[in-house]
């Protein structure tokens, strides 16, 4: 895990994400932005260099699902997760049907570690197939 992009309109949530990721991956660079449109631009620029993108759901400029719909045009969604307290089953289904992971907030070290482990497994499976 070397480069991660986190998009959340809360600076506190971003700080949490960065802290948890860097605790397990001290050398990982975590780019944090509060605006999803800016996040999409960064994802376009970095593309395959990004190991993972974490998105909030409820954001002013664009919600997490609409952000996914933009990202899927150029980014592998199996490396994307949505972190939200909005745990409506209908919504989670829409997200996971796109191949995106869903993590419920509040975040914890354990949840972030489980998520990174899950991404690694997905990548191994992806390469094997």
């Amino acid at each position, binding site marked *: 895990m070397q480069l991660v992009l986190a998009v959340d309109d*809360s*600076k*506190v949530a971003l700080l*949490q994400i960065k802290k948890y990721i860097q605790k397990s991956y001290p050398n990982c660079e975590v780019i944090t932005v509060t605006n999803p449109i800016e996040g999409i631009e960064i994802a376009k620029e970095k593309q395959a260099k990004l190991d993972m993108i974490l998105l909030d759901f*409820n954001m002013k400029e664009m919600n997490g699902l609409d952000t996914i719909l933009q990202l899927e045009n150029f980014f592998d969604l199996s490396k994307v997760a949505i972190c*939200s*307290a*909005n745990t409506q*089953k*209908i919504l989670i289904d829409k997200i996971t049907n796109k191949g995106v992971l869903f993590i419920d907030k509040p975040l914890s070290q354990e949840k972030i570690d489980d998520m990174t482990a899950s991404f690694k497994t997905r990548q191994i499976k992806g390469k094997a197939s």
Partner: protein
Amino acid sequence: MNLSELQEDLLKEIFNMGVGHASASIAEFAQCEVELTVPEVRICELSILIKNISATEGNKLSAVIQAYSGPFEGTAMMLYSEDASLDLVRLIMGSETPLEQLSEMESDALCEIGNIVMNSCLASLGTILEAEIETNLPEIITGNTCDVLTPDGKLPLDKQVVFLRMGFKLETGHLRGYLSFILDTDKIRVLLDCLQRYYEKVSA
């Protein structure tokens, strides 16, 4: 009173998490997706808040109100336009229920919905902030904005309040409303201390 950028961010984020969890309860009984707006925080005199809400929502409001106490206290409310309340009841009673029966059950059903949604929100806040929040029984208030926002005349109109609000709208478009908290600025200190501890925990 002013909130720092960090305090406002923390308030919005924990409220967002609380309402996010509550939205799952709304979606469960409505059987459809619930769209949420981003949270808003305002600090102003209660009289100004009443004026602004009347201007945007009309002067007639219905709300399920629930006072809560514990390390911090205030009033949680689920507001909705009066004409939408039967739709809300129909959602949980089923569309085949006769109108007469719906009207009879309306206040019971609304209290129950409000109770589930607000408790879900408050329980989530309590868990995040590691605080035990006690809730009183919910009650329904219908009337002009002033009656609804000043239940039992507890807060004087010139009181400074912190007003948190998040709107919800059912995917079907039949119902919209919002969940809000009104906090007395004199009693917000303990909440701000809880938020500070939460921040220290997540940033340590």
